[in-house]
């Protein structure tokens, strides 16, 4: 805390000494934002919403940033002392100033002291980032130096500790070199080719306090990447490795870890094709060996599945499995041209997407078999590179959207999902969920300012005979009507009805009524209704959302 005081005192001192200079005041800027999420909880036994003793709970935070030419500094105050029950569940409880920084940017270099968010390559070995709705923030706190000695060359070095919930834990240090040949050599820059390479290194330190094992105290991870493009074609690949790192997550094995991510795309006007493949093996990388769930993560292993925005298909999202997964995704976007017979006046958009993810095949090493199939303390397993294990997730979806006239627009979707609940949610023995969803999304623009949107969804989910299981909720129907008056007002009513639940008592209507008012950058929303117990995922990082019932209020503003 004293450090913050020093940082801010420094800024103010600089303020005071240069106050007289007209230029200083003229070029100084203070900006920021603020968010408040509060909820009044009403217990409801039917949906599983428990009594909340305080009745009212809320999250709040504010960012304040100051900039003066190349210099900037700022902090975030977070008040999560009595947070929403979702955040209490993941222990995101506390208050204070966990995030503060001062930084100087120059054409050739930049230095940051304090908290920062950074990512090397795709993040396979290092990514510090925040997602406030998820309650996720693993900002690195320490020093970051970026050098840009020549166009196209970027060198980054970081050293610091990691934020986990409201504490600073662990020790990480590393560097990254990025070379963009497109920018370095005009010959390439002016041609139809694009090329670049990069390499990164990260090491973490954690003391070995174990009496049972001899644990590595310094664990290194490294990655190399390349990107290559010719006209409308692009290829991007990254390979990462990690040395032995026994942890609770990987059952204390000494095996090295690997990850490979490949993206390829082709895009031209009216047509886009995207292919991506990922294989990860023992790549769970954390500052603490005993950490589980979303705590202490150093790296980010993305998921290769489509992030659904409609309510029903997003009930079964895939959560990335850094310990072992292999899969791919393919997507085609095509626009039937405007002003044609089939395409209509405004054109018709078609998007087809398929993803499939499996576990990796594992063969236990002899030592582990001798120990009665106990991997701990051994090299664990061997895994053939192309060995596909059990199916974790599969998603086929197609969306067709078309604007018929200036006023009418319709989008139709179909989604087929296979969801391995026992792996993705860690509930061993739960059945696989298979679901078919159809969605119609109709917009009617009444005039320049008023618009109505109707969304109808139906999900047919296969029932399993697993008695008493909470996992499979059967079929759902969903309807939502939204009325907007640009630029200030939104009103929406929705009902999500679990009419196909095997348990007749759980055939519940999860309704919600909400309204919001927007003025420039300020938005105030009120919602009354029932929240079903589910999972919220962003970028493949997920948390559970407990059931709740009551009145919610959300205020967001920036300045």
């Amino acid at each position: 805390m004293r450090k913050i005081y020093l940082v801010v005192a420094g800024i103010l001192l600089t303020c005071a000494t240069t106050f007289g200079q007209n230029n200083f005041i003229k070029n100084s800027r203070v900006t920021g934002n603020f968010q408040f999420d509060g909820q009044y909880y009403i217990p409801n036994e039917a949906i599983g919403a428990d009594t909340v003793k305080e009745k009212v709970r809320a999250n709040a935070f504010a960012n304040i940033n100051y900039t003066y030419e190349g210099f900037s500094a700022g902090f975030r105050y977070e008040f999560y002392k009595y947070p929403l029950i979702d955040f209490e569940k993941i222990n995101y409880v506390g208050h204070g100033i966990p995030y503060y920084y001062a930084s100087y940017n120059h054409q050739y270099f930049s230095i940051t002291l304090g908290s920062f968010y950074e990512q090397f390559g795709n993040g396979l070995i290092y990514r510090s980032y925040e997602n406030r709705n998820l309650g996720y923030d693993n900002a690195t706190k320490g020093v970051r130096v970026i050098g840009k000695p020549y166009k196209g060359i970027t060198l980054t070095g970081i050293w610091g500790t990691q934020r986990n919930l409201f504490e600073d834990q662990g020790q990480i240090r590393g560097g990254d070199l990025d070379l963009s040949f497109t920018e370095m050599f005009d010959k390439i820059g002016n041609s139809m080719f694009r090329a670049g390479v990069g390499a990164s290194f990260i090491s973490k330190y954690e003391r070995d306090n174990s009496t049972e094992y001899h644990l590595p105290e310094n664990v290194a991870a490294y990655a190399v990447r390349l990107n290559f493009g010719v006209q409308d074609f692009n290829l991007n690949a990254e390979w990462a490795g990690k040395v032995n790192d026994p942890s609770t997550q990987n059952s204390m094995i000494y095996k090295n870890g690997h990850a490979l991510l490949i993206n390829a795309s082709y895009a031209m006007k009216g047509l886009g094709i995207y292919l991506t493949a990922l294989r990860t093996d023992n790549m769970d990388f954390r500052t603490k060996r005993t950490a589980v769930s979303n705590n202490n993560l150093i790296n980010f292993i993305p998921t290769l599945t489509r992030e659904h925005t409609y309510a029903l298909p997003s009930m079964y999202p895939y959560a990335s499995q850094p310990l072992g997964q292999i899969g791919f995704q393919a997507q085609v976007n095509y626009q039937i041209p405007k002003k044609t017979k089939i395409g209509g006046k405004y054109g018709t958009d078609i998007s087809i997407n398929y993803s499939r993810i499996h576990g990796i095949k594992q063969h236990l090493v002899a030592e582990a078999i001798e120990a009665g199939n106990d991997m701990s303390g051994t090299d664990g397993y061997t895994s053939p590179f192309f060995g596909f294990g059990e199916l974790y997730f599969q998603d086929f979806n197609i969306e067709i959207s078309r604007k018929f006239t200036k006023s009418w627009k319709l989008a139709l979707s179909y989604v087929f999902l296979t969801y391995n609940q026992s792996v993705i949610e860690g509930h061993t023995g739960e059945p696989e969920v298979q679901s078919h969803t159809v969605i119609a999304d109709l917009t009617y623009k009444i005039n320049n300012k008023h618009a109505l949107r109707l969304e109808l969804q139906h999900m047919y989910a296969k029932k399993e005979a697993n008695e008493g299981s909470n996992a499979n909720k059967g079929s759902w129907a969903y309807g939502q009507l939204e009325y907007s008056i640009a630029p200030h007002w939104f009103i929406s009513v929705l009902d999500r009805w679990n009419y196909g639940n095997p348990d007749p008592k759980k055939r519940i209507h999860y309704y919600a009524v909400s309204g919001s008012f927007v003025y420039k950058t300020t938005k105030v929303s009120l919602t009354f209704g029932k929240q079903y117990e589910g999972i919220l995922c962003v970028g493949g990082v997920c948390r559970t959302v407990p059931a709740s019932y009551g009145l919610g209020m959300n205020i967001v503003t920036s300045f």
Partner: protein
Amino acid sequence: MKKNVLSILLCVICCIAFGQEKLGNRLMPLPSVDIKTLGGSSINTKDLQNEGKPFIICFFATWCKPCMTELKNISDEYEDWQDETGVKIYAVSIDDSRSSGKVAPLVKGQGWDFEFLLDENSDFKRAMNVNDIPHTFVVDGEGNIVWQHASYAPGVEQEYINVVRNILSNSSQSKTE
């Protein structure tokens, strides 16, 4: 401890108040952050420009439905807007490595003609104090933010182009004076 925090907050508020009283309605220049183009080259956000004419910055993500609706609706009118005002649209994707590779095939598949940029670790988003997307900024010809709006409802895009028209008519007025 609490006292420290409180005094810091007070000082900062004083600073803001002081600055604003002194200078009234000053313009906010674009922050300086390195992000990427679709081709993978880096670009500093301070260098975003439209040859002295106003431009619009839309923050979006491929997984954000209202964002895609916004871009689609702007795209339907973009040609008319450009003919009338010469405005340019920068669409900044905050997709992370999960979906940033999808941006190029998706937006080109849609036939959108905007300038697309990738803000993979949300550095530009943070520097612009954006809480949620969609969030749209109108920037004048000198690179100052003059107007912004959070969220999207069909029809709001008319406000964007009206702000651009205002900037243009104000600047032509001041030129004739």
